[in-house]
Every structure is written in C-alpha cells, then in structure tokens.
C-alpha cells in the first residue's frame, strides 16, 4: 500500500494543476486515471481544438495545455498511475484507502476527485451476442496485434483508430472496414492509403451501413451488416474490432457515499470538500451554486481545496499563505535558485 498526502483521481487539467497547488505547499500526491495518457477530456475529446479562455494564454489546444501543465508539475516528480480506474474508496480511521482495478492500493488523509464526467470507456455494440463474445472475438482496443494475425477482421468506425488499425492489420489479415456513413473523419491520408488497398483487393470498405447481427454458434463465423437502403450483406468474420469512440461513465464514483446532484458531486465553495471529510471534488464533476464548467474554475477550486488538504495532512503545522514570486521555500520546491 502506497502512503501519500493526497490521492488525485483524474489526470485532466484540473487534476494536474492540483499536483502543482499541493506541491508548492510541500504535499505529495499520486494521480490515477483510466485513460492511457494525461489530459482527460482535453486530450481525448479535443486535442487539436483551440481553447481561448485560459487566463494569459490567448489560444492553445487541449494537447498544448496538457503538455504545459505536465511541464509545470515536473519539479514535484509526481507518479501518474494511468490505465487504472479507482474502484473502491474506504475509510480507515483518519485516512482514506483507495483500490484500483489493477489491485493497486493507496492511502492518504485526502482525496481530490477531479474526474470530469467520469471515466472514459469504449462505446460498445449494443447487440446481446456481441456482449457474450467480448474479449473472445469482439474487441474495442488492440492490446497485442499478434492476436489479430491471419484473421478475417471486420473493423467498425470512421475515426483515426478505425483507419489506423485497418491499415496496420491489413499487412497480415483480411480487413473489412465498415462505417455508418460515407465520410470518414479520420486522417484523410490514411484513408487514401486504405482506398488504394481497396483497389488492390486487399481491404473492403462498406458504407453506409451498420451491424445487424452476429452469426455464430459458440464461435464467430460471420456478421450481417445492413446498408441504409435496407439491403443486407453477410461478411465472413472471425474478429470484430469496434471503434465507436469513447463514452464517459460516472462509474464507481456514485457508490462512495458522496452527496450527488445527478452526475455531479456536491461540494461547498469554500474548500470544495464533499459531505465526507477529506474528500474533495473539483472541475466539471463538482457542483455548487453558480458552478461553471470551465477549466479556469477548476484551477481555482483545487487551489482552495489544497489548503484544506494541507491542514489535514499536516495537523501539527501552521498553514502559511505564500506567493510563488517571493517564497524561498516554494522556490526550493520548484527547484529554482
């Protein structure tokens, strides 16, 4: 079990800035996120879209914002636990114990939930048979491409994941790329490479159509797709790869005994503590009168929450408010002379 001062759930901009606000106060933190990289919605939903309302930054993309925040928290050498979802939160005396789906355990007097709208999870095919075959012949991510060698693969989706994997796996497997409309939103140069492979007969592209049924007895043999005009077609398939994008699910957060308002966590607006002492919520996931779901609001929220975190983590020390411009201690913590 890892002991720290604050467990931060969510590595989006607000979770990352929390590391900074805690770090300059001398507090240690760990960050846990279900995605495979830091940045949260900024990276997953709009990496290339400009953001215009970060104070003193007239324009930056979600990716740039994330990169800069990671740079800003570098001095604190904080460990990020990615690809991990927090499943359980339990109280043990004055501490909270957090367990993840990777069986990691953390303990700290404070938790800051900066979970956005919950964890990102792949959208799945809503057919019952697809559910039964998930992990056997229906997949939503590629962990090891060797599993997909010499197969008949039907890839669904119109974004970069669908296009990239269609191209990559076509090197050693028979690919059918299926999308619900004729336009693909993924990179056009990848699409033109795939179109070339189609001309050579190495890849088939089927649009505009959607999955109608999976034809299987124990093992997947083929699927039936339905075109917009009502026609159906059977496609020999051993493996289905679905890239329908990610959806945000609140997930286990709802079960931690926190006061909720729909999908958000109620907090006070003095220190952003929830109804549980030592559990804070900030960013899009918290609600209080007048709440705005802006990145800048989240920054303010974690700044205030970090003060209360300090008081709980260092009950015998007096909290002193200091400016980064003039505090020698903060300069030391930032590695500045």
């Amino acid at each position: 079990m890892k002991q720290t001062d604050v467990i931060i759930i969510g590595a989006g901009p607000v979770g990352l800035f929390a590391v900074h606000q805690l770090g300059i106060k001398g507090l240690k933190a760990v960050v846990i996120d279900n995605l495979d990289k830091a940045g949260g919605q900024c990276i997953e939903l709009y990496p290339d879209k400009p953001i215009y309302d970060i104070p003193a930054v007239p324009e930056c993309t979600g990716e740039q914002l994330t990169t800069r925040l990671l740079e800003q928290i570098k001095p604190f050498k904080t460990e990020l636990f990615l690809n991990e979802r927090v499943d359980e939160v339990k109280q043990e005396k004055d501490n909270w114990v957090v367990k993840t789906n990777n069986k990691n355990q953390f303990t700290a007097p404070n938790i800051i939930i900066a979970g956005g709208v919950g964890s990102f999870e792949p959208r799945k095919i809503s057919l019952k048979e697809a559910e039964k075959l998930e992990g056997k012949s229906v997949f939503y991510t590629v962990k090891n491409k060797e599993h997909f060698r010499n197969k008949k693969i039907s890839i669904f989706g119109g974004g970069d994941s669908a296009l990239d994997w269609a191209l990559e796996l076509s090197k050693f497997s028979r690919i059918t790329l299926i999308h619900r409309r004729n336009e693909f939103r993924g990179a056009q140069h990848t699409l033109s490479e795939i179109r070339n492979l189609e001309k050579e007969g190495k890849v088939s592209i089927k649009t505009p159509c959607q999955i109608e049924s999976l034809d299987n007895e124990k093992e997947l043999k083929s699927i039936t797709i339905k075109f917009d005009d009502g026609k159906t077609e059977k496609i020999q398939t051993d493996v289905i790869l679905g890239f329908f994008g990610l959806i945000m699910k609140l997930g286990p957060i709802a079960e931690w005994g926190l006061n909720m308002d729909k999908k958000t966590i109620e907090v006070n607006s003095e220190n952003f503590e929830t109804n549980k002492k030592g559990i804070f919520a900030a960013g899009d996931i918290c609600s209080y009168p007048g709440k705005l779901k802006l990145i800048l609001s989240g920054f303010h929220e974690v700044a205030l929450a970090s003060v209360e975190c300090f008081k709980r983590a260092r009950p015998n020390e007096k909290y002193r408010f200091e400016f980064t411009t003039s505090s020698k201690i903060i300069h030391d913590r930032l590695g500045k002379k």
Partner: protein
Amino acid sequence: MPKITYKDHQGTSKTIEVENGLSVMEGAIQKEIPGIDADCGGSMACATCHVYVDDKWFDKIPKAEDAEIDMIDMAFEPKKNSRLSCQIIVNEELDGLEVTTPEKQT
C-alpha cells in the same frame, strides 16, 4: 413560447414549452425530461443529448456542422435523422417540433 414534444423509444411523449433561444437539450434539462443527459453541458463534446428528429421536421432545422456529425458517430444507434439536441436552437418556427430519445444514451 414554442412547444416541443419529446418522445421516448416506447412512444411515451411529453410536450413542454421551451423559451426561444434555448436549445432543445436545455429545454429538456430544465423540465427534467428523461433520456437527455447532456454530460458535457452543451459543448458538443459528448453525444448524450442525441435525439432522432421527426422526419417532417428534419429538413426544417439548420443542418448539422461537421463536428456535430462526427460526434454523432459516438452516439447510441445513430440514424439518418440523428441530431445532438444541444445544437438545435428553439425559435417560433420550430413550434411543434417532435424529437425522440434513443433507448439509452450510453
């Protein structure tokens, strides 16, 4: 005020008045119409306010931007008449608009 009708996948319908200038999503959230979640708050960053627009209305509302169509790819069972209700702004001309919420939003 324009009246908007929200139907669920089983056909149960509810008609409410929505102020001009609000989105069909905002109207639904104010009156707590089930089936419209709007997780992202209307910034076209999720697809949880996805609705099917009644055929006779589909061509009367301004066409979807590319970004909206891309996002609809991520909705539950998108169809030809799929729209994100956060992008449909109510005005007098939409008085009587009918939308249907999908079986589920996630």
